[in-house]
């Protein structure tokens, strides 16, 4: 067999259409057909409207601008998440996708902040993130210039039906073929690869490579007996209740509000609200979606690549669901075989995918294990044994305020710090490099930094004002 040229994508949610559109747009010589099965309720990557800043990179690679992806689809900008009640007695905190403060000399900012916090004189950590402060003040700008608002990350809350419609139109425009129908069966060949996908009317779709975007049921990939890693011992929530806000709030909130509850957490965003929890025995709530946290150890097996919930299922805390799907798409494109596919290429793909998924798991789990609440659910959480990588991270941070480096990390140092310091985890010892900066000098610089942020926020528009100006600009150009 030579290099794969024909691809069949199974699944018609955001994940399936994103996969088909990206493959055809970025590798036009591929022949891409999609079987757009309606996404099941359990497919979180297709159902959760809140996304991370990486979605802009995904759009850029497709050549899609803000006009198409944001303004015409009615999606909302977002700057981060506000966490409330995760630690009793601690104020709420914002995890924004941006840098905190400025280091001084060879001393990193967070170490200077920790020194002040240990001395009891530090304002909350998130007050040193310009993006978090802007979000709390109810203002919004896209990153621009060299000032405090030059480099913050912005995510989107998608209006899912309109966004999907935009992707469908784009995918068709770039040459993705859509084959309507129901999945009736799957044919396998002698080595176990998929030979064809058979539709209800008997049509056979054949391809060199199949992308399974059908959700957690993994209609193709699930037939291949790929081993799966079970995370339920760590991530113990197993139910999701999801509700669309109709109509969405007019003021377009730029922060999701995520509040801890007795057995999980609940949130309100710009398009949706919902709750994630561990189901109590014999106390099932109607309408809840059940999910099992875990990841496939071989998301690429034989000639099938699982993308989205078919590969990894994780609760939406920190909104990584669609991000992991985008990342899988990018990785697949970067590693498309140049000749006959080889097991090593799959192994390398799988190694990266699993490493990435595990660190996202660690980051989500971090919220639970550093929370402090009295309910039995939370007390159990605080005591459970952790995955090695998270245990090492926490051990090192608690000792030194230092974060270890891992390859394939999704959330950067500032994100880890936002949650750790936001939840009141303070290290026992400081980085000795802070010695070179006298505390009074650091305090002055920190105060000046906060003043500069406050001044910079003052003239900024509200999110709705920003959007209206953008829309006017678009209209004038048209």
């Amino acid at each position, binding site marked *: 067999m030579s*290099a794969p040229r024909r691809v069949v994508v199974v699944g018609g949610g955001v994940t399936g259409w994103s996969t088909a559109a990206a493959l055809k747009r*970025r*590798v*036009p*010589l*591929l022949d891409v057909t999609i079987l757009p099965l309606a996404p099941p309720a359990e497919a979180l990557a297709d159902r959760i409207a809140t996304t991370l800043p990486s979605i802009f990179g995904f759009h850029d*690679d497709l050549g899609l601008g803000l006009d198409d992806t944001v303004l015409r689809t009615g999606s909302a900008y977002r700057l981060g998440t506000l966490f409330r009640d995760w630690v009793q007695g601690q104020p709420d905190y914002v995890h924004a996708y941006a840098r905190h403060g400025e280091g001084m000399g*060879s001393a990193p900012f967070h170490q200077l902040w920790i020194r002040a916090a240990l001395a009891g004189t530090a304002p909350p950590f998130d007050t040193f993130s310009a993006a978090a402060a802007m979000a709390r003040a109810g203002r919004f700008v896209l990153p621009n210039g060299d000032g405090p608002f030059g480099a913050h990350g912005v995510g989107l809350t998608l209006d899912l039906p309109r966004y999907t419609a935009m992707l469908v139109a784009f995918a068709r425009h770039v040459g993705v073929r859509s084959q309507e129908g129901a999945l009736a069966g799957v044919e396998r060949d002698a080595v176990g690869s998929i030979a064809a996908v058979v539709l209800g009317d008997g049509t056979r779709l054949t391809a060199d490579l199949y992308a399974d975007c059908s959700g957690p049921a993994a209609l193709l990939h699930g037939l291949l007996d790929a081993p799966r890693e079970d995370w339920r011992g760590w991530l113990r929530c197993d139910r999701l209740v999801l509700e669309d806000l109709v109509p969405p709030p007019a003021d377009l909130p730029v922060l999701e509000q995520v509040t801890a509850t007795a057995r999980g957490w609940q949130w309100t965003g710009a398009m949706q609200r919902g709750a994630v929890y561990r189901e109590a025995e014999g106390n099932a709530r109607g309408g809840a979606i059940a999910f099992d946290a875990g990841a496939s150890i071989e998301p690429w097996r034989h000639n099938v690549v699982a993308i989205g919930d078919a590969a990894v299922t994780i609760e939406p805390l920190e909104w990584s669901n669609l991000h992991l799907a985008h990342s899988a798409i990018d990785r697949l*494109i*970067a*590693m*498309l*075989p*140049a*000749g006959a596919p*080889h097991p*090593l*290429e799959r*192994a*390398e793909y799988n190694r990266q995918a699993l490493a990435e998924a595990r660190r996202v798991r660690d980051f989500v789990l971090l919220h639970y294990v550093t929370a402090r609440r009295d309910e039995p659910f939370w007390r159990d959480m605080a005591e459970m044994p952790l995955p090695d990588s998270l245990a*090492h991270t926490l*051990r*090192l941070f608690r*000792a*030194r305020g*230092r974060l*270890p*480096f891992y*390859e394939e990390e999704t959330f950067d140092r500032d994100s880890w710090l936002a949650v750790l310091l936001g939840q009141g985890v303070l290290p026992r*010892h400081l*980085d*000795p*490099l802070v*010695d*070179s900066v006298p505390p009074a000098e650091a305090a002055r610089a920190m105060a000046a930094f906060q003043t500069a942020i406050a001044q910079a926020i003052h003239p900024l528009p509200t999110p709705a004002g920003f959007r209206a100006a953008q829309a006017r600009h678009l209209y004038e150009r048209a």
Partner: protein
Amino acid sequence: MAGRPSLRVVIVGGGTSGWMAAAALARLLPGRCSLHLIESEAIGVIGVGEATLPHIRGFVERLGIREADFMAWTRGTFKLGIEFRDWGKIGDSYVHPFGTFGRGKGDVDFHHYWTRLRRAGVAVPPLEHFSYACMLARGNRFDLPATDPDKLASTYGYAYQFDALLFAPYLRRIAEGLGARRTEGKVVEVLRDGASGNITAVRLEDGQAIQGDLFIDCSGFRSLLLGEALAEPFEDWNHWLPADRAVAMPCRTETAVTPYTSAIAMPAGWRWRIPLQHRTGNGYVYASAFTTDEDAARALTGAVEGAPLADPRPLRFRAGRRRRSWAHNCVAIGLASGFLEPLESTSIYLVQQAITALIELFPDSAKCAIERDEFNRLIDMEYDRIRDFLILHYHATTRTDTDFWNYVRTMTVPDSLAEKIELFRRAGRVVKYREGVFLDASWIAVYIGQGIEPEGYDPRADLPDATMLTRSMQALHGEIAATVAQVPEHLHYIDRYCAMAAAA
């Protein structure tokens, strides 16, 4: 800082590692430690004329050293990369640059487009013609990189080649200026605490015991504290890197003072050539299983370009590392922690990484299990990645002219390396690291330079029209050649920037 315990740090061994550690700790951790370095003039220093990697510049800068001053003092020259001669086969030559190929932008690396045209039968120039750093090196030219990222002249970094025997004294001056103490003497005994196993003091020949909380073992190959006293096991990599001896001999420079180091393959190993301002350092790294010391010395003497400035000096070593570089309260830095032959100039880099990690993880007391584990994790990662990269140079060869080359060509390599080679061979893919010393361009340079040409390439490289692609490659080729021609000659640049003082 008031109230913080100050650790008594004892460094055993001067030389490059010892004085680098002393200067950096004195500079960056004032008040956190007192420094006491013990060295013996009776024990020789290994420094054989050092070539470095671009990371050294960060180290020099953090110490507040002025580059020109430091280069004049150590008679240093600039280094844009390493030239490898006769590795893939006799007659080959390629440069591993401290820079990228092509413009270094875009989703798909330049070498995929280059491979596409080659496989389509288009007569494209060798890959190194598309590297600004390689072409500067080949032209014996040097200038500092441009800061504008749109300029071709921004697509490289640089390092130094300097006299290591002058580097240590330079750092010693700094360290002593910042309060480090030095004691002349030989360590004859290492005293340990019976309960914890920690080192409490080292006793010198004259009977005095020097006490400390943290001990830094910079004693070189002997690994006096970590290896001998604490008996940390040595992980031997000799079967992959069979070179275990070297003979070094400086000579007068008769050819060019090149802005690069050369590594020339030899019958049982390879020979370095490091041009400094006042002389050229040479050495033959060889495997004693495949040649004799006499033959090696003869081969080196016969190969060097000018009159010898000293007698050939023999060195012995073994490739590998201590299982842990930090055990108990003892951190080994440099040769005391492990050895990888200087084929890719990684010795000082490893010292620097260990010092940086130690500073960032500097403990408050001798109880430091967490810091130690993280330190060891970081250092192991560095060693393991460099190891694979070095093995690649030996293994990717078609040479059959000696038993040595037959051995390394056919030996079993670590799985981690075999997989990397196969991924590149199939489609030009380089296993991505976000961190680590050698990134994509380095691996590409060695793969292509030693004849591992990819059979395929990223399918996206097929997107541009072939004629347009050929034309833009020709344009880039011309632009690099024209830009390089404007750059000053290496020696002229040195004369202007950092000429050494006239010989005393």
